[in-house]
């Protein structure tokens, strides 16, 4: 890591010391401009609104992958629960979107009446609209601040953050590590999604929240609002990237990588390892929450199935395919796999006739993804990011979240285990 070295590289600005930050941010800006100029709302219309949404959602997934890379690739915690935080962020913003939109609809329908509507009538009307599907007519307690955008925005950060804080504190203080920890996070995710599947969870059970693509308070068409969300996603990804790069560039990055490689040793150096893990776990949960809050308005609907444990495992798969321990690797992995998955499972990919058997991608994509992932783990542990490294020949000081897989780190872990 260059900035800790007493030699040459002392005082240069952060961005200059980390060219990958400049490259990624520039690429992101360029991409955003191109999409804007080709969009229906602000450009030629070469890119359909639904594809803008797909791209925007992909950016959010990249942000989640970034968080995953920080917590797994750098800190060594293979969390199988970060998509749950993603979903919680989505639920938090979804509650406001659904409430505000239903509020407008109810006020509209009541305004035709002879008498001005009372607050009670409006509230009952909204409750009936939202909870009719689960046979309820009253607001559950967790909806008590759904009318307030600032409070729900705070919830986007606080709910995943607090959950991660409490769970992480419990898990780390009892020194649960490695595979055990992964399984525990998976159990947490399963518990959460099962809870949300219940009708009396207060979040509409398996119906989830819907109609989130409509932004209350604006009469702009979808083509325009989807661009707004696209920009917001791009901005969030850019800021997230810079933040993560800044975190891992300094001594903090050095400590968490050390935690990943040999936790016990770091403890004997006097660092409160649990505090560092908890910090990273909570921070990445918050980032995932924000990513989710941007994702679901573009998806339009959120339901508990989105938070099933498998979603979080996929997140880990993206990061692994992209190449752990490199922030750009996570971004590349998430973007490539998510877009390819959309393409192959969306039915756009042409079938592959093989004479006796026609490969239908909808059926076979998952099979190839699974096997391909195994091959990457076995033969290209650096993932796509490793490919980039080879092409660009980045100086090694820049991809400092080095590969756990290929040698020294792994050996260190082995030793730590003994």
């Amino acid at each position: 890591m260059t900035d800790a070295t007493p030699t040459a590289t002392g005082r240069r600005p952060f961005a200059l010391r980390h060219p990958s930050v400049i490259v990624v941010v520039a690429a992101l800006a360029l991409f955003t401009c191109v999409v804007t100029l080709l969009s229906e709302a602000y450009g030629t219309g070469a890119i359909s609104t639904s594809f803008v949404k797909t791209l925007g959602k992909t950016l959010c997934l990249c942000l989640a992958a970034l968080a995953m890379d920080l917590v797994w690739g750098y800190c060594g915690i293979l969390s199988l629960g970060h998509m749950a935080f993603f979903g919680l962020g989505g639920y938090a913003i979804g509650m406001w979107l659904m409430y505000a939109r239903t509020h407008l609809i109810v006020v509209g329908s009541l305004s035709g009446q002879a008498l001005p509507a009372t607050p009670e009538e409006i509230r009952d009307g909204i409750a009936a609209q939202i909870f009719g599907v689960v046979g309820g007519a009253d607001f559950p307690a967790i909806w008590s601040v759904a009318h307030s955008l600032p409070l729900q925005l705070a919830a986007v950060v606080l709910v995943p953050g607090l959950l991660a804080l409490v769970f992480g504190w419990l898990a780390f203080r009892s020194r649960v590590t490695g595979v055990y920890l992964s399984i525990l996070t998976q159990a947490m995710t399963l518990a959460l999604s099962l809870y949300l599947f219940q009708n009396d969870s207060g979040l509409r059970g398996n119906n989830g929240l819907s109609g989130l693509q409509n932004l209350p308070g604006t009469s702009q068409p979808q083509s325009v609002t989807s661009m707004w969300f696209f920009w917001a996603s791009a901005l969030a990804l850019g800021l997230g990237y810079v933040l993560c790069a800044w975190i891992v560039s300094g001594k903090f990055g050095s400590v968490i990588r050390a935690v990943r490689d040999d936790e016990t040793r770091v403890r004997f150096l006097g660092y409160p390892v649990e505090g560092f893990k908890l910090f990273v776990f909570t921070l990445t949960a918050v980032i995932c929450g924000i990513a989710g809050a941007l994702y679901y308005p573009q998806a339009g609907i959120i339901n508990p199935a989105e938070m099933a444990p498998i979603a979080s495992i996929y997140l880990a798969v993206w990061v692994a395919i992209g190449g752990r321990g490199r922030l750009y690797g996570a971004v590349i992995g998430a973007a490539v796999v998510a877009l390819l998955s959309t393409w192959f499972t969306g039915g756009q990919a042409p079938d592959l006739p093989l004479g006796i058997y026609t490969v239908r991608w909808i059926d076979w994509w998952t099979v190839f993804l699974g096997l391909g992932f195994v091959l990457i783990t076995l033969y290209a542990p650096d993932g796509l990011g490793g490919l980039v490294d080879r092409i660009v020949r980045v100086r090694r000081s820049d991809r400092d979240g080095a590969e756990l897989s290929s040698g020294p780190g792994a050996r260190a872990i082995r030793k730590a285990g003994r």
Partner: protein
Amino acid sequence: MFRRLILALVIAAGPLTAQDGPAPIQELLQEQGALIAESSRRTIGPAIDALAASGLPEARQVLERWQERELYREEETGRFAFGVEVDRDTLRLVEIATGRDIGEVSGDGWEEMRPNAGIRGLIAAALVRFQLSDPDPATRREALRAIERGPEESHLAVLRDALPQENLPALRSQGERLERLLTVRFGSTVEERVAAIESFAGDTSVDVRAALNPLVATRLSVSEGVPEGDDIARVVRPGSEALPRTSAYELLVDEGLAPMRLTRSAKRDALVANIENGFVGGYRVAELGTEDARNAAYRELVAEGSAESAIPEEEIDRILDRFGFAERYVASPAPVALAAKRILDGLDARLGMMRLADLALDGLSLASIYFLAAIGLAVTFGVMGVINMAHGEFIMMGAYTAYLVQRVVADYAWSLVVALPLAFAVTFAAGVALERLVIRHLYHRPLETLLATFGISIALQQLAKNVFGTQARPLTAPGWLDGSLVFNDVVAISYIRIAILVLALVFLALFLVLMKHTRLGLEVRAVTQSPRMAGAVGINPDRINMLTFGLGSGIAGIAGVAIGLYAQVTSEMGQAYIVQSFMTVVVGGVGNIWGTLLGATLVGFLQKGIEWANPSNTLAAQTWMILFIILFIQVRPRGIVALRGRAAEA
């Protein structure tokens, strides 16, 4: 015409044969003839009673054939005879008293006695008297059963009459019990009924509960002030879960104790209907944007007389406070109901114990399934430190193997015999292949192994979907595994679950033998405790790892067959068990089969226990269980059976 003449002659000859006047039964019938012919449920009683009480030997047969619609009455003379329709208008008649064949006659002059369903019921009740004193014990037993099935008030007296004559002890005690049951319901005095009820203390049979439960039926009643009376089952408070405020108030309105509730919509409608020039009840329409303003305007309307007096939502509580609500016994006099309640409460405690036993059986069978599903996982994790995410898919593979076998081998028992070893073989091979091709290259990188096996898992799952489709495939158990082992009305366990339990025990035993008494087991234990030392003494860890992984996968295949018999075979069935299997391993601790057993038991019993505590919601049960396990890890991070000291750090 000629034929008719003959018939007339024959009939005319009839009475001549009974030379010493009509038989007593004929006399009796003709006495009651009018009532019998009228065939009305309300008036028929005395006629049936007269027949039943006559003591005449033919009475029973008359009742039976009457019930069968084979009793005929000659319109002219009122004479009765048994008859069978030969064709549409010809009857073959038999004299009642003597059984003499009268011959075929035209149906014209004879009227069929047509008892309706109600009368047939009365006849049946009357017949019970005869059946109960029938010389054939089988008939008497059948009669008792008939009473058990459909007890009637009339049975009580009959039964009491018949019991002293019963000489078979079994039937007698059955009859006496039945008599007490009938007394509970139909006894004429309160004391008699209470005594009968109390005689059933501690008897948990379904029939006792069926007799007692209706007695304690209650109805909600309302009174001003505090509810009083000895028939109160319990006092309920409005706004509690048992009595929501709105229901309480509706009761008041129904009883005429309070004016109609003014719902928001009714209030609005009334106000809208009275809008005049933008004003309602002295208020401007634009002002009516709050419920308080609307209430005030409505009061004005009531004062004007243009709206009905009603109580707005906000004042309901004040009115409810003036009344007391209680559930009162309505199905029986208070002492009877209280006695029944007392006995039922006593039963509840016993039933609770039995349900607990039933629950324990459920928990046991769930635990055995988790044990089968988790043991393979625990072995691979213990020996190799590897979590196999595709374990669930091996379970699925085993189940599909059994399904395919069943399509080839038609006999369900034999197909099972073939399927078990074949499933083991298939998944063993798959496990060895996975170990050779993937896991071997990822040793000491446990997190990557976890992810790589996840890749295998999704590929296998989708592959199964492509090959077998998404619909569930049945796996049928042999006939002798159908049904349940029933201990009593509450405690029962199906044979399939017993079979799975036995399978789990067999595997536990096999496993123990394998580990303790074979070379392989010795080597596996050596590798588990210290891979380096094992290598140093000449054990080939590669071979051990491969065999261990194959073994773990093979057991998963067997578990798949077991689970397939009990649930259904789908491409996602593995996923349903994998998390619980992980939990079992985590809770139990690694490297020790007893840990797995304890873990499975804990997880299985816990899940059933939570389901029992909150039966309405299986999803919630799983949530709570997982939360519990997360907290459990806080107390015992290394599971129930934890290795300590130097071994723990290996």
